[in-house]
């Protein structure tokens, strides 16, 4: 395999989708999944032969031009509900439905990530005042979105994160029955959200692309907490039938997610470092657009979403506990294990329209990804 030159910034779609060879494939509960193992038995993520060094090169270029990568304050990440301790209590008491449901929803929502390949990518040379050649932005529709989609939902004869999560669930909990209301839960809280335009001054396709990227980036970063929850829970021998294998599945997913976070923050940082052309012929600082999108997303993800998630889980808990023949005291014991969480007052992306020279981003740089 040829080493990629650090000075190289342009890659073909085929290169960004190239996985290279593996010494052994990844079989997740007998399902062939993407990625595989090298001669030392180390897991190697799919489609990273060129993608990983390409992202590093774009990031280095951005830094050399004096621009920072956008970062999120880790304090913004809401805790998973139920927590690992609460989930363990439920499983120990034979109340598995809420956990199976949560794991299944994670797998489906991971799979939904594939929809990123359908996001229209407008002509970015016309969208920005500055050139976009040799950037992550220029490669979104030429391999980056497609690689992301394949990682999440699988492709051809290989499973992706969706199937890996299913395997982790089935290995740990021994092929549990999936509650019939899983899709209803997903639809109940997702489909009713109305899209509203945050950047009406931009072309609608461009806004849609940027909004999707901002949303996916925030969700990807916040998912670190979910993955941590999944890994800790499913690799715990007290509740998991196959702790090593199930935990490993989640670790592989986490490893695969790194390029997603990195290309999205790189591309959005490139947007922030540029100037957007509006539909009426004016300009909009890219930073203003990114801040507006990230702020709205982070507000939703730190306030409404955790409340909705918690309410959703709670809604099914009483039924699940009753079905398992457990008394009300289980709910009390569960609540006793809860640590209250309050979202930070600021997102770090508060809109500063009319102040294009203000410092771009806040947060702890060491904490990200």
């Amino acid at each position: 395999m040829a080493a990629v030159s650090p000075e190289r910034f342009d890659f073909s779609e085929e290169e960004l989708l190239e996985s290279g060879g593996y010494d052994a494939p990844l079989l997740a509960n007998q399902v062939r999944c993407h990625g595989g193992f090298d001669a030392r038995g180390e897991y190697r993520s799919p489609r990273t032969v060129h993608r990983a060094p390409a992202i590093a090169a774009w990031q280095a270029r951005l830094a050399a031009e004096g621009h920072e990568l956008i970062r999120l304050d880790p304090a913004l990440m809401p805790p998973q509900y139920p927590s690992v301790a609460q989930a363990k209590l439920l499983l120990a008491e034979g109340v598995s439905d809420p956990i199976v449901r949560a794991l299944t929803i994670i797998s489906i929502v991971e799979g939904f990530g594939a929809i990123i390949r359908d996001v229209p990518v407008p002509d970015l040379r016309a969208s920005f005042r500055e050139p976009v050649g040799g950037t992550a932005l220029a490669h979104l529709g030429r391999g980056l979105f497609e690689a992301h989609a394949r990682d999440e939902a699988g492709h051809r004869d290989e499973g992706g994160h969706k199937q890996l999560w299913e395997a982790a669930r089935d290995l740990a909990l021994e092929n549990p029955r999936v509650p019939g209301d899983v899709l209803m839960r997903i639809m109940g809280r997702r489909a009713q959200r109305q899209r509203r335009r945050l950047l009406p001054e931009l072309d609608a396709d461009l806004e849609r692309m940027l909004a999707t990227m901002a949303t996916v980036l925030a969700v990807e970063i916040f998912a670190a907490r979910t993955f941590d929850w999944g890994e800790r829970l499913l690799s715990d021998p007290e509740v998991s039938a196959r702790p090593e294998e199930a935990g490993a599945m989640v670790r592989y997913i986490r490893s695969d997610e790194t390029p997603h976070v990195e290309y999205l923050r790189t591309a959005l940082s490139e947007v922030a470092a540029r100037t957007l052309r509006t539909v009426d012929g004016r300009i909009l600082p890219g930073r203003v657009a990114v801040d507006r999108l990230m702020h709205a997303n982070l507000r939703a993800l730190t306030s409404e979403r955790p409340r909705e998630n918690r309410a959703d889980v709670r809604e099914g808990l009483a039924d699940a506990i009753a079905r398992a023949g457990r008394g009300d005291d289980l709910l009390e014991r569960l609540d006793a294990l809860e640590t209250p969480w309050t979202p930070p007052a600021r997102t770090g992306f508060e809109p500063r329209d009319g102040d294009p020279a203000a410092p771009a981003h806040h947060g702890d740089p060491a904490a990200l990804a």
Partner: protein
Amino acid sequence: MTRVSAFERARRAARITRTALVIWALYKLPDFARRVLRRPPPTDRTRTHERAAREVLATALSLRGVVIKVCQVIATRADVFPPPFIEILKQCHDAVPPHDFAIVREVVERELGKPLDAVYAEFEERPLASASLAQVHRARLHDGRAVAVKVQYPEIEALVPSDLGNIRRACRVYEFFDPQPLELLPLLDELVKHLALELDFVREADNADRVRALFAGDTHVVVPVIHREWSTRRVITMELMDGLKVTDREALARAGIDRAELVQSLMSIYVRMILAQGFFQADPHPGNLFVRPGGQVVLLDFGLAKELPEGFGLGLFELMFSMMTLNEAAMIRAFQELGFETKTGDPQTFVEIARRMMRRSDTGRFEGEFTEQMTDELFEAIRENPVVRVPSDFVLVGRVFSLLSGIAHTLGHRANVLEAMGASTGSA
């Protein structure tokens, strides 16, 4: 139950038998002649299919009732019958002449146990619509509320056993003599089950209430309220719903309704019923869907509603999702979990079918919308017989998505199943 004379029964039996014989002759006599003349069998039977389908249609329009219902079912089973049957028998959805008002009055008065005037302040003699089993009249209750009254044809229940018995006999004879028969008897068994349910209007009222409950709190969907006190097994009195026809582009434009949003909204409603709730109104043809100002969708006619087995919605989602994401391994698993079986046991057959369907989509890919062309391709692949078992629930669901796709096509927009589920909001 209204009695049907022995003469009428004999007339119907004779007509059904004659039709079966004509169809047999249409297919078998030319085959016999070719064998005698040592000519190869025909490669294209389209004209024969057309003639046979027209014969069936003529019989249905003559006998009405159950036979029309049978034709309507045939028109939905593109997995079994050749395309000319589907095209020609589709006419049965629209070509049902109404019964005289005197008959309607008699049924209503007998069922409600009161004179018509005692229940309704007004009752329009001309029906709003007439179908195979019943017709609908506009009326007004004494408290002023406008209602729609669905009245079952009095002879239907009496004709069901005899007509179906005649059709069953014809099917048996056909299956006995044909070396490679279409499997019609299971289809007929399914129809018998459906008919029993559709003839029970109390059940239809229950279905309406159940769908209304699914959308409780959702201001985008309206289901008419059933007036139970004036409803029985053969009569339903329900809230009269007004609205624009879902496919009337001009009227929608005048009302300022965004067609793209309407298409997505319709898909969202059906995805929610089918995939998420596992219970759905299974007949979304344009006559059963109204649109109100603001894009509110009115669902009508719950005679054909279906409860899916547990896990079916998730299985269907997995199939659609795996096709959308080109994940062939997941596709095979989903086909198998839904209950499909191949003749050879080779699971690759499923991938081939999926590829055929995708080739028929507008973009060459499955993007979360089953177009009519795609379901046609699926059913054609199934007719070619590499698949020996297709879950009947899948056929019904396929038809629903196909009807929705037809509406979307008329409105000039596309719907996306995953977006209808909220998938565009991002993932990890």
